[in-house]
């Protein structure tokens, strides 16, 4: 049971990471990244690291994401088009 759940988590991690990387909307990418951080925090809780789960939820999913969002508001939301 445990292994299966772990595998599901890992699959989610990889999927969110890839989505965050390839999303064209930067804001979406950042939000997906915060989801990734949350899943990571859950994963760590499963690995018996409650301190870190707490920290990651607060810092990784919280502060980091907000910093990204602030930056995106101050710059631009979409990736620039490929131009040759």
């Amino acid at each position: 049971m445990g292994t299966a759940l772990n595998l599901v988590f890992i699959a989610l991690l990889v999927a969110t990471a890839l989505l965050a990387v390839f999303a064209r909307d930067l804001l979406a990418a950042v939000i997906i990244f915060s989801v990734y951080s949350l899943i990571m925090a859950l994963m760590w809780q499963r690995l018996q690291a409650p301190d870190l789960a707490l920290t990651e939820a607060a810092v990784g999913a919280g502060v980091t994401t907000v910093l990204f969002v602030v930056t995106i508001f101050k710059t631009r939301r979409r990736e620039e088009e490929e131009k040759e």
Partner: protein
Amino acid sequence: MKNLLALLFIIALAALLLYVAANMPPMGDPDNPTATHVIPRYLEGAEKETHTENVITGIILNYRGYDTMGEVTVIFSALAAVLAVLGRERRGRIHAYVDRSTVPSSVIVRTMVRFLVPLIVLFSVYTILHGEISPGGGFQGGAIIGGSMIVFTTIFGLYESSRRIPQKVRFPLEGSAVVTFFLVGVLGMVGGGNFLTYAWPRVAAGLQPALVTWLTVLVEIGIGLGGAMVLTSILFCMIREEEEIAVVA
């Protein structure tokens, strides 16, 4: 072409790293080098030696306190760096786009936030002070305070929130973590031990447990306050409007 090269490099690196993963000690095995070498003493002795039930807190603040001193210096450096790049806001004149948001937040949200933020801060205080017993500790608590400030700022605007934690409050507290660590360290030296020794050899053995506990709490508070203020300052610095920032084009 460049992307292809990068991809090839990454694939090679992935192969290498997976090869390592396949050759590493099996995960979770109690006979691993990691599980047999330094650990037993920490797990057995932490409670007696550092007077913290949470072994991680014991390691962070006591066994490897020097690392944590480095850590708080890192976050202070980050603040100094951000301020050096963006410049600190002038006192009392601080605005951000959230203040002029075209979508006014509803009364329900405002009330909820007004109600929630004190609770979050309370929780963070608990996290800070209770760090040696339960999960959590100084930095986590500080980060939670920072989170609460984020919530407050997004709803009420930067002007409001910077009135709640004005610069003259943040300014002296930003370095508190490093200073606390340094003071505790020097006290350890004065107390006859080494830098960052909590159980001073010059103090009677009976007093040492209380001393260690109080010093630990002191450091926790220092880290919590420092972390919270630094995160808040960084956030304010990044979020505020930029008319103040010198643009050298």
